[in-house]
């Protein structure tokens, strides 16, 4: 089965819920190696998206949902996360423009476009201790799963699992981008908050796909 607008809106709701649940944890992670605003900013952003969901047109397609998330995050989150996640969703929307139903190739394309958008804006590379360290393995896992003929749900599951490992992989790293980069070796032992929110969002995408499959 393919994924449609209902999955996309479910993903937004699940994202808003999981970000709200983990708001304090994200603030704590960010306070350790940043400035402590990541959870607050992301929660403000996704709450704003949630409030706008009802305004979507009846014939909205998944790209419309992704674009709504993009513009709302850009205009409400601030910090580095706003433009970075905003660009991710904007590029993701562009990757599936015009498609009412998303197949495995589309799902993999969404993730790849999102990752490429973040790299374009933030110019981070693998190993810089940023959200890219969660996105890169997620995109690779999704592509591999798709190449093996996996379903949309299995592709998103693979991406979420890889993102979790990627987020954990940031812990021993020295940061080379963002505010944690000023800490040098003192950033070692702390997880990158953007990588953690990435894993939460991708986990929400997979969970929403599982709900769609079980209905």
């Amino acid at each position: 089965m393919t994924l449609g607008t209902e999955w996309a809106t479910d993903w937004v709701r699940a994202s808003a819920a999981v970000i709200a649940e983990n708001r304090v944890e994200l603030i704590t992670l960010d306070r350790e190696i940043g400035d402590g605003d990541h959870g607050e900013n992301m929660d403000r952003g996704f709450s704003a998206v949630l409030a706008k969901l009802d305004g979507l047109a009846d014939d909205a397609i998944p790209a419309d949902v992704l674009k709504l998330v993009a513009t709302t995050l850009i205009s409400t989150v601030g910090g580095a996360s706003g433009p970075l996640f905003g660009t991710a969703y904007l590029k993701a929307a562009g990757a599936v423009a015009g498609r009412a139903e998303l197949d495995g190739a589309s799902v993999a394309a969404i993730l790849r476009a999102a990752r490429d958008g973040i790299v374009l804006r933030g110019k981070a590379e693998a190993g810089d201790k940023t959200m890219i360290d969660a996105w890169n393995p997620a995109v690779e896992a999704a592509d591999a799963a798709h190449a093996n003929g996996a379903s949309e749900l299995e592709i998103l599951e693979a991406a979420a699992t890889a993102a979790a490992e990627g987020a954990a992989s940031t812990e021993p790293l020295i940061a080379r981008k963002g505010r944690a980069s000023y800490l040098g070796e003192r950033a070692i032992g702390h997880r990158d908050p953007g990588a953690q929110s990435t894993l939460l969002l991708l986990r929400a995408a997979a969970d929403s796909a599982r709900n769609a499959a079980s209905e």
Partner: protein
Amino acid sequence: MKKLINDPKNVVTEAVEGFAAAHADIVRASADPLFLVRTDAPSDKVGIISGGGSGHEPLHGGFVGYGMLDAAVPGAVFTSPTPDPIVAATTAVDGGRGVLHIVKNYTGDVLNFETAADLAAAEGVDVRTVIVNDDVAVQDSLYTAGRRGVAGTVLVEKIAGAAAQRGDSLDDVTAVAEKVNAQVRSMGVALTPCVVPHAGEPSFHLEDDEIEIGIGIHGEPGREKIKLQPADAIVERLLGPIIDDIPFASGDRVLLLVNGMGGTPQVELFIAYRHAARVLADRGIEVTRSLVGNYTTSLEMQGMSLSVLKLDDELTELWDAPVQTAALRWGR
């Protein structure tokens, strides 16, 4: 932690409303999107805008007014503003001669101002950007997000603002802002951390006898923690890397800024100024202009930063030019 607030969510909007009410002769506030703008904007001069996370007051709102900024865009506490209010402020101050964005080099500020500049350009505004990165505490800037913009930003805003006020073109105002940034170096120290209102807990931990050298202005930890030392020793620890960086040399004329982080009393800032001026004099560096006070703060953090700007006749003249803002006011 006790704070004089009503609700953490409303800290910035209520502070901006109060600021605009207190300085109604100079600025007015736009509520949505949120920014502060000169009451006489736009005018027939180049517009100058700055902005960034709140919590650094009087930066930037306190520097809106004659001879300095045309608008300031405050974000949430320690969080860059989003592109929307930056675009709105940019178009509000554009009188047709273009707008300069003065941006502190923090990832979020740079990304949001970059996005806003693209959007404003699409609306036909000629926008230039100067990224301030005066903080020598950041080592290995090739392998980090680069040197941060700290208290030297005030000097960039004052001098670029004076250039715009006398009628310089966008190219010339941008060039003088870049010149100031190239000739100013800063470094800070924290005696205590600060508490972001919505976080409710200190941004980092310091023992009673510890200080943090190389602090940024967002409560983010700095270069190293050391034991508390006498003021003169701390001054030397900050001034050494500053002098060695450009480097400043015997015969130079400089402006010395001793900037409080918000929680340090003036009496301590002047103790620091006293020794900093002596250290510079011993090196043959003449302090011909000075500024001492809380100009780029980190909420209630105790601490200070030192900034040294190499002056020439042009920069001195622009520094001395009349200014009328909430936080800097002379000659008018």
